[in-house]
């Protein structure tokens, strides 16, 4: 049965709902207020690896904004065919667990190719991993480490942690 113009319009309008639909001004103001206070944020960690084949970088989340870690990406330049980076992320002095494990030994850190792997080495460029959920807090220290198996030369890498920050004011 061919729908009439009125029926098609009615179907279209019925799909306009939630934040995507016709709302009262009060509702839209509430939506914008929430949008102002909840936003995405990236934290970038440069991981230049020199001798003795590991690198450490720190960042502090924004003061006054609660940060929830929800995703991560990593990529390395300059990798040889048999070089495999390992990634560890920890939260010094607060949360005992971590998204990418860092044990007592550097080889406890997760192999980047297994966690993020899509293309493998060399020249890693990984898809974003989105199955993280770590409610941290504000002004929160994050420590990122990387180790390189089979070090033969310096390597440049980056770890990008992505999350949502929320203004509590």
């Amino acid at each position, binding site marked *: 049965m061919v729908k009439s113009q009125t029926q098609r319009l009615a179907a279209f309008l019925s799909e306009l709902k939630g934040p*995507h639909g016709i709302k009262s001004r009060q509702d839209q103001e509430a939506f914008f207020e929430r949008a102002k206070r909840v936003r995405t944020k990236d934290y*970038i960690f440069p991981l230049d690896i020199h001798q003795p084949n590991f690198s450490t970088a720190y960042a502090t989340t924004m003061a006054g904004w609660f940060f929830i870690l929800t995703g991560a990406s990593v990529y390395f330049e300059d990798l040889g065919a048999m070089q495999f980076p390992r990634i560890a992320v920890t939260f010094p002095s607060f949360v005992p667990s971590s998204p990418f494990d860092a044990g007592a030994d550097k080889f406890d850190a997760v192999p980047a190719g297994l966690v993020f792997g899509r293309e493998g080495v060399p020249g890693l460029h990984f898809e974003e991993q989105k199955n993280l959920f770590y409610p941290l807090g504000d002004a929160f220290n994050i420590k990122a480490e990387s180790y390189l198996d089979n070090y033969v030369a310096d390597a440049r890498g980056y770890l990008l942690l992505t999350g949502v920050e929320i203004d509590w004011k």
Partner: protein
Amino acid sequence: MSAISEGIKQKVLDMKEAQRYEKRYDFTRSVVAKKDEAGTLSIPMTTEGPFYMLGYNIMFTKNSSKTTAGGTTINAPFTKLRFRAESDNCAMSNDYVPVELIATPGAEDSSRYGMREFNHLFGKGDRLMIDFDHREPDALAGETYSLEDEKIDIVFTGYLYPDFGNV
């Protein structure tokens, strides 16, 4: 006229007159990152209403190159970006992010599939600030670099709220 038709008419009038609706909007800009330069581009957003960014896509060229310690020459973009809104002056990343890390997975000059999800609200008449850094990186041992201008195309995708006013 039936009650249904009256309801539809009222909704359409509400959309037209009160402008309380939203529409999809692609906000696009091309940037040429000049070699050995760093700076900030200030780009006016639409004055039609607030823009709620849901994400972005980035394409870039790889005219620059580097020669590794092993003597292999490969193309690399070197460009780093940081976005922020002028109104809140809050950067969307704590530092410059290499364009490769937030842009098209895959080969140079390829189109991106999907969208990098990233939520940020821009008020009506706000300005998008793009900080870029296209200078030679600190050299790794044995590496040399050759920088050229790079063209970067960005599409910011989201919802536009016409005539809502300044949020």
